[in-house]
């Protein structure tokens, strides 16, 4: 029998409106008891969490684990380790692998690998492809993917650009109550662009990706989601008007949810002036006005989820000129620090609201809620809300180090996680 006593941590669980300092006794991976104080039973590991916060296990629903196919960037082993050290007990991995997750055998492969990785401390929920080979032509075997364990469908990295296919995907996925995660981009408007279109792209002579490329796709999809009555999730929203469209969609009763990445509420396109390829991602970094709208969207609930779009690339791939460099940055190990710094310190969100965006809401969207109650599986993240720390990308657990946040001082950090009867304190 393996027993762990979490002592005097402040449990914040938005789903049960709980915020109190407690002891939690875990026996063989399950919550045996939650009380103000618990007398330690014999042969029990005691973990003092005085001054620390206990949350239900955080999840990042937008991660690129790169395996199979791009193991030089990241593997399921290194990606889940990065997640664990970033404070996440679960991730959803995107299907733009090679082969793509467009077949139940690949879903099974990813799940098997993830159970072996780091003793299975991080749950990996695969996102299946919408279309075969993510080519946007024919529906992938959605029912089989869902049955094998896919929790959502997406062609992320690319949009489902054919409106007819998007309609069919929404209708088909709705039979199984899984959402479509859309990478919102009109290819004809975005094509060739490498950064936000505006004064900075004009000055730098880099081709822009206009905000309308994202917004027009969202507008189209909202109409499709309304028409089909299906569940639609906007990935990595980046513009002010996109936030407004989703807000209006929600008011109309459309089943829409949305996510934003920490970099899109932290950085603007001004940082691209360095020509540092770690500032290149898709959607691109936008403007101050967009950040303000995103923060308002987070505050008023238009934006449900904070997800990282963790996109590892090797140094060689990124150390080229700006046009040639691939899109994307790693994000798992900086997400909490950026969120607390930019959102909680500035009182845009309370801690409880932040946990909603990093746990309650995303878990509800993919149907993997956790309940903190006696008899339930123990799945926790432990946070130090007050620590100031400096990002050092060289010590990232991720195989890739492509981060624009190197050297930046962040606020708040995970200090450990517990999941699947595994404790990791760091």
């Amino acid at each position, binding site marked *: 029998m393996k027993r762990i006593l979490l002592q005097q941590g402040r449990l914040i669980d938005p789903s049960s409106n709980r915020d109190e300092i407690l002891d939690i006794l875990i026996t063989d991976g399950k919550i045996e008891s939650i009380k103000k104080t618990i007398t330690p039973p014999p042969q029990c590991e005691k973990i003092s969490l005085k001054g620390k916060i206990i949350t239900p296990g955080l999840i990042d629903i937008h991660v690129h684990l790169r395996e199979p196919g791009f193991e030089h960037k990241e593997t399921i082993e290194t990606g889940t380790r990065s997640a664990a050290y970033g404070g996440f007990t679960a991730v959803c991995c995107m299907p733009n692998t090679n082969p793509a997750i467009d077949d139940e055998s690949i879903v099974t492969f990813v799940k098997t690998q993830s159970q072996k990785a780091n003793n299975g401390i991080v749950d990996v929920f695969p996102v299946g492809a919408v279309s075969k080979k993510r080519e946007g032509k024919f529906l992938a075997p959605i029912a089989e993917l869902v049955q094998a364990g896919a929790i959502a469908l997406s062609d992320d990295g690319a949009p489902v650009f054919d409106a007819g296919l998007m309609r069919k995907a929404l209708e088909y996925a709705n039979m199984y109550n899984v959402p479509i995660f859309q990478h919102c981009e009109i290819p004809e408007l975005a094509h060739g662009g490498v950064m936000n*279109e*505006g*004064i900075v*792209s*004009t*000055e*730098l*002579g*880099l*081709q*822009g990706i*206009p905000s309308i490329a994202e917004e027009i796709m969202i507008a189209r999809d909202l109409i499709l989601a309304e028409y089909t009555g299906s569940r639609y999730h906007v990935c990595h929203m980046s513009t002010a008007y996109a936030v407004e469209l989703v807000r209006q969609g929600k008011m109309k009763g459309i089943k829409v949810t949305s996510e934003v990445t920490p970099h899109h509420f932290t950085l603007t396109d001004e940082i691209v002036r360095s*020509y540092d390829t770690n500032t290149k991602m898709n959607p691109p970094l936008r403007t101050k006005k967009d950040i303000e709208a995103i923060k308002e969207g987070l505050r008023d609930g238009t934006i449900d989820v904070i997800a990282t779009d963790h996109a590892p690339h090797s140094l*060689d791939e990124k*150390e*080229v*000129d*700006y*046009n*040639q460099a691939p899109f994307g940055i790693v994000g798992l190990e900086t997400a909490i620090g950026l969120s607390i710094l930019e959102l909680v310190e500035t009182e845009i969100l309370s801690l409880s609201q932040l946990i909603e965006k990093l746990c309650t809401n995303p878990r509800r969207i993919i149907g993997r809620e956790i309940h903190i109650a006696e008899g339930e599986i123990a799945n926790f993240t432990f946070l130090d809300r007050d620590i100031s720390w400096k990002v050092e990308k060289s010590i990232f657990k991720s195989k890739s180090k492509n981060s624009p946040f190197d050297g930046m001082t962040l606020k708040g950090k995970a200090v450990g996680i517990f999941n699947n009867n595994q404790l990791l304190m760091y």
Partner: protein
Amino acid sequence: MGLSSRHLLGLQNLPKDDIQLILDTAVSFKEILNRPIKKVPTLQGKTIVNLFFENSTRTRTSFELAERRLSADVLNFAAAASSVTKGETLKDTARNIEAMKIDMVVIRHNAAGSAHFLTHVVQANVINAGDGQHEHPTQGLLDMYSLREKFGELAGLRVCIIGDILHSRVARSNIYGLQTMGAEVSVCGPATLIPKEIEKLGVKVYHHIDDVLPNIDALNVLRIQLEREAGGFFPSLREYHRFFGVTEERLKRAGKPVTILHPGPINRDVELSADVADGPHSLILEQVLNGVAIRMAVLYLLGTQQ
């Protein structure tokens, strides 16, 4: 007193004093170019590589001539003949060249920021000879030199740049440099070829050439890349010429002489009619000679820095 930087990457952040120094230095080099013996020993023993990843005859010959006039040892590297086609990265190429103990690198590359990137991977002085759609600082400097020579000073001068502003590094360098020197800059072209939010740079935007001509002293006519027609930026070259082409007839209507510049090579009778190109108000051939003088000045100032 020398330049404030080890490299010449662009004119956007180049201080006024530096521009002034380059233009003044070029005056004496132009004087040398008009002597019977045009060579000086200033950069003897220095090795300069011309790293050209994009086809260019004019800029490369102009740089090469400037380098040879200064007695530098010159190495030409053209992308087509190199291992770049085999997938070697800019970084690898640059490091290899650096291993051969090069003092200065002149780079032209189709990616914006490539010259900037190079300064992080090599120790040599870097001169940007055109990076994508970003900057072409020596072209901007030679245009300013030509205007200053003609008008005496740049402050208060009204200059319009006409054509494909969106894809033009020449336009950007001209805007930055001329504004630093106190000139008033406007741009003119089809709306599809004007970059987003350019007016935030303090540049007036025009779409009708006849609105511009009466109010300017000089017109810098950009080359229209013939592939822009295929790219759908305007319906046809014929229509472009009819509505944006600079012709004798249009200039006459303006009522006063307008000085004409063009970075070359000219598409005659597309952006510029032949009679204007060869006319009395054209500085085009003078620009070519001034280009050598400007490049000598830049190479000299960077190459002899302490």
